[in-house]
């Protein structure tokens, strides 16, 4: 018996009620993919329906129509919702008719305009995938990384510094170096709460929140109009990075299509995280520590070491969301901007059930939500904040699947399907 099977045997033997160790393959697949996707899909649909109700009930024309009769009111409500969500979907995915006719016509300008929304969705999804993976990896390892926001700031600072301060390097060296800087910066910032949790038992949730504020102030200090990393022309932004550090664009000649190679990096990162979690010894240790630290300890794993590594990897992934944003889209770092990725990432990890591929799907959805909401505000005058409402509702429904099951009269799940995400303050 090698170490792995011993560990697995112990992990299963010491399994506590409600917090199962990583389940063996066969058991997990019972019910198939569709069943796995059913609750998240219904959660999304329910949240969108509630969002539609919010739109309808906050529209004055709907109330006026109701004054003229119930049927008129309902009709007006549907037309308002239809206009808003129509704008939403065309902002997120583009107008399919226009895309097809543009493709048939073969004119470059038309195609570009038609696929712009879709490409914008992919661009916005890119940092989401990284940040979502960061939180998901943490969940798998039993740590709750609320610090993606802070890791984003630190990684951004380091990346942009490497990007503008080092000159004369060929792109083949400079770009990887700048990305690596983000990985290291985010990783170290993430490792701090990991180390503190492993060594002192201090809960990572509080420490990552504290580190978020520290990182935010640090960035503010560095990028202040007179800061160490300011451009020097009185504006609170960093200098432009060297073109040799740019992430290549998909469409190098079309600046308005901002989607870049970062998207593929994000997909690669998802694959890598999947491989790490499910195909390597380290991944097995991470999942075992996450599911049942006591079992992991009995199996001879170093829980402390695993926690530090999990947090460092999580921080590194969060860092990459900043690096790809800066190297691929912004090309500089502005002061005092709140990315909002840190909290959205939690929603992503939950929605994706902490599985790397699930996170990618969830990120595409959130990218679409953000891109669509912009259009919805522009065309239908529905505030972008509707996305936050929808996102919050999605989290509620995903976290409490019982609500969805009751609502749609679904069967109770097989025991052990529930994923442990995080424990209370006490820590392991």
């Amino acid at each position: 018996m090698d170490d792995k099977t011993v560990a697995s045997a112990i992990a299963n033997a010491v399994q506590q009620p409600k917090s199962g160790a990583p389940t063996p393959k066969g058991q997990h697949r019972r019910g198939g993919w569709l069943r796995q996707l059913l609750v998240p899909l219904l959660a999304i649909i329910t949240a969108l329906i509630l969002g539609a109700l919010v739109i309808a009930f906050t529209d004055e024309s709907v109330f006026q129509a109701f004054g003229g009769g119930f049927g008129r009111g309902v009709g007006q409500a549907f037309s308002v919702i239809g206009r808003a969500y129509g704008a939403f979907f065309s902002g997120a995915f583009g107008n399919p008719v226009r895309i097809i006719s543009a493709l048939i016509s073969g004119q470059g300008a038309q195609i570009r305009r038609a696929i712009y929304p879709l490409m914008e969705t992919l661009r916005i999804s890119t940092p989401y995938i990284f940040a979502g993976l960061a939180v998901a990896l943490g969940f798998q390892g039993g740590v709750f990384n609320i610090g993606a926001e802070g890791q984003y700031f630190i990684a951004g600072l380091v990346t942009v510094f490497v990007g503008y301060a080092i000159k004369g390097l060929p792109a083949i060296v400079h770009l990887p170096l700048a990305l690596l800087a983000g990985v290291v910066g985010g990783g170290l910032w993430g490792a701090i709460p990991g180390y503190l949790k492993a060594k002192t038992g201090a809960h990572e949730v509080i420490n990552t929140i504290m580190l978020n504020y520290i990182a935010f102030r640090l960035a503010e200090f560095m990028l202040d109009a007179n800061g160490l990393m300011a451009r020097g022309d009185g504006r609170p932004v960093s200098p432009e990075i060297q073109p040799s550090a740019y992430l290549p664009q998909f469409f190098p000649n079309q600046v308005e299509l901002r989607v870049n190679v970062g998207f593929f990096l994000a997909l690669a990162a998802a694959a890598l995280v999947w491989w790490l979690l499910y195909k390597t010894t380290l991944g097995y240790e991470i999942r075992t520590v996450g599911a049942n630290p006591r079992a992991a300890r009995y199996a001879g794993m170093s829980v402390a070491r695993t926690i530090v590594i999990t947090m460092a990897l999580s921080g590194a992934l969060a860092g990459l969301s900043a690096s790809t944003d800066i190297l691929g889209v912004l090309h500089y770092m502005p002061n005092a901007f709140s990315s909002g990725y840190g909290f959205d990432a939690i929603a992503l990890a939950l929605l994706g059930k902490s599985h790397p591929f699930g996170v990618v799907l969830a990120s595409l959805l959130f990218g679409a939500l953000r891109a669509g909401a912009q259009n919805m505000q522009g065309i239908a005058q529905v505030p972008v904040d509707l996305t936050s409402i929808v996102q919050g509702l999605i989290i509620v429904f995903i976290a409490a699947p019982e609500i969805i099951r009751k609502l749609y009269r679904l069967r109770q799940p097989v025991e052990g399907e529930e994923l442990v995400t995080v424990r209370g303050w006490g820590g392991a």
Partner: protein
Amino acid sequence: MTLIKTSAKAQRRARTLGVVLLVSALAILLLFVPGANAGQTTTFAFNETRSEAFAIPELAFPTRAGLYLMAALTAFAGAYQLARGFTRQGAVLGIVAGLFVLAFLTWAARGQSMNLTGMMKSSLLRAIPIILAALSGVMCERCGIVNIGIEGMMLSGAFLAALIGSVANNVWVGLIGAMLGGALMAALLAVLAIKYRVNQIVAGTAINILATGLTSYFSSRYLQKYEVLNTPPTFLPIPLPGLSRIPIIGPALFNHTVPVYLTLVLVIAIQLMLFYTRWGLRTRAVGEHPRAADTLGVNVFLTRYVNVLLGGCVAGLGGAYLVLSSVARFDELMTAGKGYIGLAAMIFGKWNPVGAFGSSLMFGFADSLQTRLAILAVPIPSQFLLMAPYLLTMVVLAGVVGRSRGPAAGGQPYEKE
């Protein structure tokens, strides 16, 4: 064996404290003394207005001599701690921390005058929303529900305070509206955490996102469009007769608006209720060991529901303070992370209302110090001052100087067998 281990740990901690004290004495000597010229004096003023019963003279002293005195006191405390050991280490640490801050102020105000009473007052005012957030956290966590959604509860409290206060054109109605707003979000947390046994941190996060979305959405739909909906009346400061005329602390503590007094009363009330009433005993029992409490006939679910709802009301008050006591309107995301800072203050204060009050004051002090130093043109970037409380929280949480531990059953859903 565990006994020996803990005593060794305690010894190490005592030694660490001694070293920390000595290092702070050294820091005073190395950081502050060289900056002060031989002839400079520091002046601390105590009269904010002319309303005191009698004026306290300004305190002027040579900067260097003052700094040497403070360094000597700190060093003495450190040496005594290493040689004999204090019995009340927390108090000693507090006093020395105060000395260090005083040394810092002495240095910052060298050759100038600084109004300490004004400083106390602005620290308190900046701390009020943090205190309320921390109290809300204490209420929830003492019964075993981790509340990370304080931010969201404050935000909805602030929103409803502005909306209902404007519509009714009455501050008191606005105040009730704010409590309602906080309680609504708290009800969601309670149902998710108690009934559906959702992970409490996840539920709190959902509440924060949801509250951000709802308040921002309705604000841009209605409050920004119709100004009448966003012009609530505000509380006016009411000087307490007699008390407000006490020198130094009078203007700092007893010339405030109703929400401020309410906060101070709540700190004491919750402290007393938690530790001296049946309700408090039950709450703490449910937070520490729900099963045992249940066996003894305490209704775990009811206790948790009640506490979380009350906690939501308190958080809502925090939002109300922002709207009804300072800016007189609701702005999107106006809580600006105060709910999270309150969480830190709660931990810093060891899940204790009075402790949470003290640590919130520290956050408030750092905030107000930062603006004062800008006026005095002190060459310390304000960002670093603002960072300090967060760093300190991490240090405390890591147990370097005294450990902070939450209720044992915090975050665990309870299931009846």
